[in-house]
């Protein structure tokens, strides 16, 4: 069953004279419960796709159709923002429990529900702290927990592990896989790490340089459940990584040329 149907999506920003075509003819169907990773050069429109799916941005043309979920009480989607977007005026608990507060759940119950997630991200000791007391990687983890706690049908993740150190990244990748395997969630995951995309995804969408289109879709058929650490040792892993890099290489070069021409 198709959960997200993206059809001929296009998005441009700005007026006629200073127009940026961020997306052009972007088509993608994502199955219910599928884990799809998107890779592409910087500025190719990855975040824009995610924001349109989240309903935070309206497309210039084209449509995004999301199938309604069977279970009630779950929000349709929750986004982990590239720039994390924690509220500086809320403590870590309050930030993580934000979705619960919006659903009208009382303070004590919110706390009870949130604490296990804080343990998962290794920050239960910091629950009373404000975000400014945390490092960049810790903040990123809090924003992950905030999305997990919301327990949405669709998780939209915009480079969620980019600010993390290698060890925490590995732990949280595994944690994300566990959470996803035990749920019926659909995940749309943006990353710059080809290895990360291979380790996590069912399919990898490789995008072109701006205006962003789909260049290729690569199915990843490593069996589930996966262990990220073990997968890396698989010889097919390196071969896949190389072939996806070959697809990306030209696009990254094009993107760099575009950026230089613009400045």
């Amino acid at each position: 069953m198709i959960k997200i149907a993206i059809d001929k999506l296009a998005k441009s920003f700005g007026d006629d004279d200073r127009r940026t075509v961020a997306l052009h003819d972007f088509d993608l169907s994502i199955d219910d419960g599928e884990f799809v990773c998107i890779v592409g050069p910087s500025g190719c429109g990855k975040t824009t796709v995610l924001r349109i799916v989240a309903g935070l941005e309206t497309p210039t043309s084209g449509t995004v159709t999301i199938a309604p979920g069977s279970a009630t009480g779950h929000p349709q989607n929750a986004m982990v923002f590239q720039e994390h977007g924690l509220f500086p005026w809320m403590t870590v608990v309050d930030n993580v429990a934000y979705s619960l507060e919006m659903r009208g759940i009382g303070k004590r119950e919110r706390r009870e529900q949130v604490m296990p997630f804080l343990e998962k991200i290794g920050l239960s000791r910091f629950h009373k702290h404000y975000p400014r007391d945390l490092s960049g990687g810790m903040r990123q983890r809090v924003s992950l927990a905030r999305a997990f706690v919301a327990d949405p049908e669709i998780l939209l993740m915009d480079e969620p592990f980019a600010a993390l150190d290698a060890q925490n990244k590995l732990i949280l990748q595994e944690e994300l896989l566990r959470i996803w395997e035990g749920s019926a969630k659909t995940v749309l995951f943006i990353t710059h790490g080809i290895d990360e995309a291979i380790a996590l995804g069912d399919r990898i969408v490789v995008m072109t340089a701006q205006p962003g289109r789909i260049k290729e879709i690569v199915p990843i058929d490593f069996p589930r459940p996966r262990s990220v650490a073990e997968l890396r040792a698989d010889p097919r892993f390196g071969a896949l990584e190389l072939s996806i890099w070959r697809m990306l290489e030209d696009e990254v070069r094009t993107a760099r040329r575009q950026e230089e021409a613009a400045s």
Partner: protein
Amino acid sequence: MKRVNQERALTILSPVAALIVWQLASNAGLVNQRYVPSPLSIAVAGWDLALSGELAQHIGASLRRLVVGFVLGAVPGVFIGMVMGLNRWVRAALDPLVAALYPIPKIALLPLLMLVFGLGDGSKVVVVAMSVLFLTIINITVGVLQLDKIYFDVARNYGTPWPKLFRRVILPGALPTILAGLRISLGVSLVVLVGAEFVASQSGIGYLIWSSWQTLMVEQMFVGIIVITILGVLSTLFLHECERLLVPWRRD
């Protein structure tokens, strides 16, 4: 915490040290006592004024005008500023008006206000309120506009209804700017009030300063200057304390 205490001690000690230097300079004849009397003689004059009850009366009159004027200006100012920050139509409609009225030195309107509101407290309260109003509007509008767009995105993504958006996102997000703006407004309202009391009043600290000057009672004049300074410092400290309590995530 220890460092904070040390800083506090220093903020108290440095003016005391200045007073001592001033007194010593006066005793040594380095300062002309006709213009700048010594701290001790000012203290004596202040004591007399306090005993006669005159000082309390002046302080009371000024405080009353200050508080009423400030509240009358700040409350609608915060409200209008919020609405202007949040709604682009309201902003487009009111911006030119605010931009035109804000630069008028409100004290210049005092004669006009006295025609309208009479010679009593009314005109002084209104001139203070007007100074505070426009400053507050501008500060609050900027405070709301400066809120990072990401917070609205997050709020929307998690389905925040409007009242909660205001209470949990907009208000706390704008609070640091609001309080900083109010602090500036309070300083300005003191200046305007003293100015107004100079020319158009029979009571208040401004009147005390001005009338002492006219009768060449320099010590009394200094008592007035010092009282108004203390008033300014206390009100700033008060707002600082509010900030510490209301904006704990900014504490440093």
